[in-house]
């Protein structure tokens, strides 16, 4: 194979920088290696056609069948999906088409040479592509004729490389000379593999370019040493302008001594941290009834029925049975829903303990204010809820009270954190339970919706997680 100016790179030589970029390829490449195995693979053979022989091919159906059998796939569509993925990356290709897809029929496919596999991190330059297109025009073979889009590409490259076209032409001639020395059958195979390589890197317009990388990963993965290798062994000076996504990364963070020391400190704190047993954690209460994707909702999902009444209902103050039921799951759920919050507040007012919830809500609001308003709000809250003789005095234990008044010497968003937690726990263990058991009056306008009045009774029996 004389035209391999750069010798075929064994996979593992290349991976010193990281396995990251080749991880997805490795799994596919395991499959691609197996599928070509003499004993266990697909039947690759030479097919006699009209006046000629087609070497080294296999049918699409054979590939699909093999995938189903060897990957344990029952659904042919799934096998097609995987097969198409492998084809799109050029590991095998249709011998008579530039479009890299898999068909489950008698279409012939050939396997790509490992030299051209994506894991070798090819980023072929346009000069290589120009040489390739150019040399195809030099040989008088129908199978090597350029497709329309390739002819257009060649014309564009001729304009772009006008000044060094002589050099490109010479390289193309040299390649043709080398190719001519090869055996006819070998040439057929190599030419098709070379074409498939370019179909991956310069795809037919409209096809997905599978070599496109996520720009966030670009800099870390390909060619860390910035050596551009040429398919045809050219040594290029850096004449290509660098796109922003390929500018060298200036922040290569390695594990410094300081990092390791910090990590050790952190790990030491983690050894004895509190952990819950898996069995306890695994008790999961199912909200499945509330999941649109699993069970259909009443009223109908507006997306499928074009009926927005569900959204109107959600926005309204007259909650559905199901929504009300949710308030029984936890205090958090009740407070999340504005209607639930309102009802809970009313209930607390009836018990003359609404100052707790009002305090909690005031602190939540303060936390969302712009920085410059926070200090003032903090003081207002102190005056309203905590100062001596405050109009809505709340009941804090002396410890939290002390800490809070200390915090207020330098008021900030989290000055009331302890106090808030304390009050929340109080509401949860005390008022909330009574709220659930109470018979709450119906909506404010006096209309009595059936079922809403006694909606909370019986809830606690279904939900052991309350409290």
């Amino acid at each position, binding site marked *: 194979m004389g035209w391999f100016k750069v010798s075929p790179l064994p996979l593992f030589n290349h991976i010193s920088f990281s396995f990251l970029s080749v991880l997805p390829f490795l799994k596919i490449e395991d499959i691609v290696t197996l599928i070509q195995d003499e004993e266990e693979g697909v039947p690759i053979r030479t097919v006699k056609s009209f006046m000629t022989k087609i070497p080294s091919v296999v049918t699409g159906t054979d590939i699909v069948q093999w995938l189903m059998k060897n990957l344990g796939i029952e659904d042919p569509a799934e096998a097609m999906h995987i097969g198409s*993925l492998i084809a799109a990356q050029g590991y095998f290709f249709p011998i008579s088409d530039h479009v890299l897809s898999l068909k489950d029929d008698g279409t012939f496919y050939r396997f790509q040479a490992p030299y051209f596999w994506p894991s070798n991190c090819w980023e072929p330059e346009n000069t290589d592509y120009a040489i390739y297109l150019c040399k195809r025009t030099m040989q008088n073979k129908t199978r090597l004729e350029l497709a329309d889009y390739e002819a257009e590409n060649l014309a564009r490259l001729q304009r772009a490389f006008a000044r060094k076209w002589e050099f490109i032409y010479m390289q193309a001639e040299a390649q043709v000379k080398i190719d001519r020395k090869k055996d006819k059958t070998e040439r057929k195979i190599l030419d098709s593999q070379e074409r498939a390589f370019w179909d991956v890197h310069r795809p037919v317009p409209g096809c997905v370019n599978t070599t496109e990388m996520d720009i966030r990963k670009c800099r870390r993965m390909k060619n860390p040493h910035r050596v551009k290798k040429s398919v045809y062994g050219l040594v290029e000076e850096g004449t290509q302008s660098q796109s*922003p996504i390929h500018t060298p990364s200036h922040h290569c963070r390695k594990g410094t001594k300081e990092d390791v020391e910090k990590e050790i400190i952190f790990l030491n704190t983690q050894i004895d941290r509190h*952990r819950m047993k898996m069995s306890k954690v*695994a008790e999961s209460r199912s909200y499945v009834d509330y999941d649109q994707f699993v069970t259909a909702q009443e009223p109908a999902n507006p997306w499928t029925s074009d009926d927005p009444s569900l959204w109107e209902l959600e926005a309204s103050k007259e909650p559905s049975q199901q929504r009300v039921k949710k308030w029984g799951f936890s205090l958090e759920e009740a407070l999340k829903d504005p209607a639930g919050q309102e009802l809970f507040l009313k209930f607390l007012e009836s018990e003359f303990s609404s100052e707790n919830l009002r305090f909690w809500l005031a602190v939540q609001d303060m936390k969302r204010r712009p920085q410059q308003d926070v200090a003032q709000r903090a003081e207002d809250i102190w005056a309203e809820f905590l100062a001596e003789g405050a109009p809505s005095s709340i009941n804090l234990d002396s410890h939290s009270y002390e800490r809070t008044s200390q915090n207020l010497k330098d008021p900030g968003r989290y000055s009331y954190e302890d106090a808030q937690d304390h009050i929340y726990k109080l509401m949860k263990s005390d008022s909330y339970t009574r709220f659930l058991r109470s018979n709450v009056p119906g909506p404010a306008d006096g209309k009595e919706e059936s079922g809403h009045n006694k909606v909370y009774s019986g809830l606690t029996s279904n939900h052991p997680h309350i409290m």
Partner: protein
Amino acid sequence: MEELRKEMENLKDQITAVRKTFQDSTLQEAAAGVTVVGRVQLKTRKTLRGHLAKIYAMHWGTDSTLCVSASQDGKLIVWDTITTNKVNAIPLKSSWVMTCAYAPSGNLVACGGLDNMCSIYNLKGKDGNVKVMRELAAHTGYLSCCRFLSDTEIITSSGDCTCVLWDIETGTQKMVFAGHQGDAMSLGVSPDFKFFISGACDFTAKLWDIREAECRQTFGGHESDINAIGFFPNGNAVITGSDDATCKLYDLRADQELLTYQDPSIMCGVTSLAPSKSGRLLLAGHDDFNVNIWDMLKAERVGVLAGHDNRVSCIGVSSDGMACCTGSWDSFLKIWN
């Protein structure tokens, strides 16, 4: 230095051993009595057309009908997903955008990317024009993700391996969360807004206390970059998606991995993920153009969303749980349910 590294590895082994002692059961055993969710088949209800290049990110507004998307065509588009109309089409200074976010209030959107900045836009400006309100600049690497805590605070993650809490009013950094040894790729805020989680290219996920600017927990186990991360709806667990083609569920209280979602036929990395409203289902977007739907309790694949012609780069479930939105490199967004 060698000594230090040995000590570090030693501690890590100890922690692994301790975690094992709490494994008196597995989620699979506990869920043995639960029936698998039946086959989940979601259909495309809307296709949002308008972007001219790869879509890198999308985020639902809290009203469940508006969403924002960011594309490499240099535009941020706010969509009314029901009518498919573009409410706003915001031209960006830098077209290399990688993330976008919608503030819970609906007043602001944010985006950022290779410009290393997080730009905040006010959607409700007086004269109706959408303008840049703040440019939060301090990161020394690309902006991979951003999420609002409120109209006054936002958290960002960056390729410089740190996450930052910003005060939007003053445009300054309030807290820096450093600790990851690789690019921080994604972040998620807890339902109570007290914590956030980050996934990075050092293969770990970290839980951070927003108030104390400290890392509370670190979770490992993935074999490659973590590209996507999200809280389980009840806030007690964390879900991660990685280039190693798997998703994992970590419980915060047990401090360890509960489940791995993987299948030999899934060979492409996870780019994005979103749990369904109840947390029973996990939707994961992959490089192979598909979204896989998992039964989270049973770790079985129960559905596939196939409809994009290029990789799925972002996914989100609306807050009312009614619909899921996917964004792709094929320049389209699709609404499914």
